[in-house]
């Protein structure tokens, strides 16, 4: 390999260096037969071809987001879309964003699915199940679900490590002396929250702490999904909230009672993105690694485009607690 350069290959095959470069790089201007011959020769001569293999053709990745998620100013899914677009551009891909306005049964399918516009599809955030099935049926490109999943979809998914992350957050509280733990979240409305609730329960079980139902508090009405957080008379010493949003509502309710965080009650939550907001409370929270999730989602799409890989399953992306002072050690 020592000193084996494109020039040597050019000499051996009797063409110019530029032609060799073009042939190895898969660019235009070289006949198929010549290109194949040059590649073979270069390989035989021991030229390192790995840097040529790495170049992948640019792809266009469609991104679907339900509009209901985007309407909020600083929305989690808007941030996740940003990360996805960035991850794609880092891999020399473009993204096309389409917001789903209407997820009813007779709503039209997303336009980006038609006319071979996209090479792959990333769906950011859960979409109504029946509409989602129609999208999956119509999409003839690789699909990756970001931050939601259902086994019935038989589709690749990239999610935050809900079960483990919630366990980490609850254990964080236990490590700081808390034995009376409450949970804020509505497991019935989201699979992610249900998984986080189970992670919370794992922590209780492992530490021999009984599950107290009066400390499991839904922050939303199950049917209308409107916020309605009602706190019981007696409170635990610490709460784990299934999202930063839930934590914000909780802190508001506590304030109404004249209780301070973390002096009177500790709060650990899940997401770590509200801190961007000026008025947000400094929450100690489990970080959702959106960068890594987006990067993996794009990587999965490209992998599937290259090798035609089929269903691989779900990738849960783990992370760690970010300490911002909403938890007090007892």
């Amino acid at each position, binding site marked *: 390999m020592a000193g084996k350069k494109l020039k040597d290959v050019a000499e051996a095959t009797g063409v110019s260096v530029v032609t060799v470069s073009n042939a190895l790089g898969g660019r235009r201007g070289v006949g198929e037969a010549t290109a194949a011959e040059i590649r073979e020769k270069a390989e035989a001569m021991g030229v390192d071809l790995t840097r040529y293999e790495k170049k992948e053709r640019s792809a266009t990745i469609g991104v679907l987001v339900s509009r209901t998620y985007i309407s909020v100013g600083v929305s989690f899914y808007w941030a996740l879309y940003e990360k996805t677009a960035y991850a794609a551009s880092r891999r020399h891909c473009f993204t096309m964003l389409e917001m789903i306005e209407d997820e009813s049964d007779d709503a039209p399918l997303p336009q980006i699915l038609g006319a071979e516009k996209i090479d792959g599809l990333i769906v950011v955030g859960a979409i109504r199940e029946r509409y989602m099935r129609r999208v999956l049926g119509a999409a003839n490109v690789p699909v990756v679900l970001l931050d939601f999943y259902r086994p019935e979809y038989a589709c690749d998914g990239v999610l935050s490590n809900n079960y483990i992350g919630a366990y980490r957050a609850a254990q964080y509280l236990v490590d700081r002396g808390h034995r009376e733990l409450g949970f804020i979240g509505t497991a019935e409305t989201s699979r992610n929250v249900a998984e986080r609730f*189970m992670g919370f329960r794992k922590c209780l079980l492992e530490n021999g702490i009984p599950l107290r139902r009066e400390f499991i508090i839904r922050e939303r009405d199950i049917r209308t999904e409107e916020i309605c957080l009602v706190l019981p008379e007696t409170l635990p010493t610490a709460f784990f909230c299934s999202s930063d949003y839930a934590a914000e509502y909780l802190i508001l309710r506590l304030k109404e009672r004249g209780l301070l965080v973390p002096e009177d009650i500790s709060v650990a939550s899940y997401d770590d993105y509200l801190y961007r907001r000026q008025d947000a409370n400094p929450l100690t929270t489990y970080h959702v690694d959106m960068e890594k999730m987006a990067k993996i989602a794009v990587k999965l799409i490209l992998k599937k485009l290259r090798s035609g890989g089929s269903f691989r399953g779900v990738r849960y992306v783990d992370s760690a607690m970010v300490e911002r002072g909403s938890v007090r050690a007892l």
Partner: protein
Amino acid sequence: MRPKKQVKLADIAEKLGTSIVSVSNALAGRKGVSEELRARAVRCAKEMGYPVKERAPGAAARILVLTYENEAEEAAVSLAALRAATAGVGFELERRTLRRGGSGNFAIPEAMTVGGSESTAGESGDGFAIPEARADDGFTFPAAESIAGIIFSERMAEADLRAVCEALPGVPAVGYNFFDCHVPIDYICDDGFHGIGIAYRELYRLGHRDICLVTPDVPEADAIDRYLGFLFEASQHGQCGAEEEIDSSLEHFLLRLGGGSHGSVERRPTAGNSGSEERRPTAALCTDDKTAAAVLREARKLGIRVPDELSVTGYRRAARKGSTNAGDDGVDLTSVICDERLLAEKCVDTIRKRAAKGNEPDGIRLLIGTLHGGATTAPPPGS
């Protein structure tokens, strides 16, 4: 550490009659040099006192595999899988054992345990289980530079994990099929929480609505994840609430199977059939194969036909997915298979990637198993 008079690559090249680049490539383990020349170059370099790195990229790199003395039964499975995963990919395994005596900080909840086979030999709680380097037990850690990575091949106490990581700073470390959220290294772990759902969904698909979870009377640590995974899946299917607590012990289930004799077991609602306590469940979703075998034995004793009257599923670790592990009576058990090979490969992969890229640990990585469809599952009676 070089000798006073530095030997240069050029000296070796001259002696061997080859180029400096070739010698460099040979010693660094890069390709483009014949193995014959490589061997000659390494020999020559050593003779002349040129520092040859023990761990050359491309050459076999050492991975330290740690187990406890009197290893747990499962450690043998992990070791076999790790051996297979490292064969021929440029890694060699070096096994070391730690003395038990960790703090055993894993508390099994009262609700799920009866007795304790939990293996904490030294209960004194003296924490650090790593004995000082002593000649008689041969326990010394190799230099960190000579190690590509560490694999903890069985669940280890937090103090032990920390002590090893401190002894070998900067070396990528991976926990094999367990995790400890207090020690920030990589963990590759079977996803028992989601894994048990595979069996649940299969039973549900077959039409079962009276699915009963069965855990051993002395559950292992993994049982918690599978217990909660069951509750999660059952609540997703609207069969119970996410907050429910159930008695999933084998003892309790066998009593239900037998009907009449209630014994001293306290009766608590069971997910999937609250209020229908008198009815026999149509499916036993067991958290491991041993428990499933016990259910099968009892069913045979009671004259309950499997799978016509009762479906039974298990959960096991196996070196290859789909490999059948017929129970002691030759029954082909439907079971969730935790693919040991995949776990081992990911462990090795993680070390390789971290050694190459120098990135931070990814934390806990969950890998889900697959379903082995055996002869112990069928639609419920009367469907």
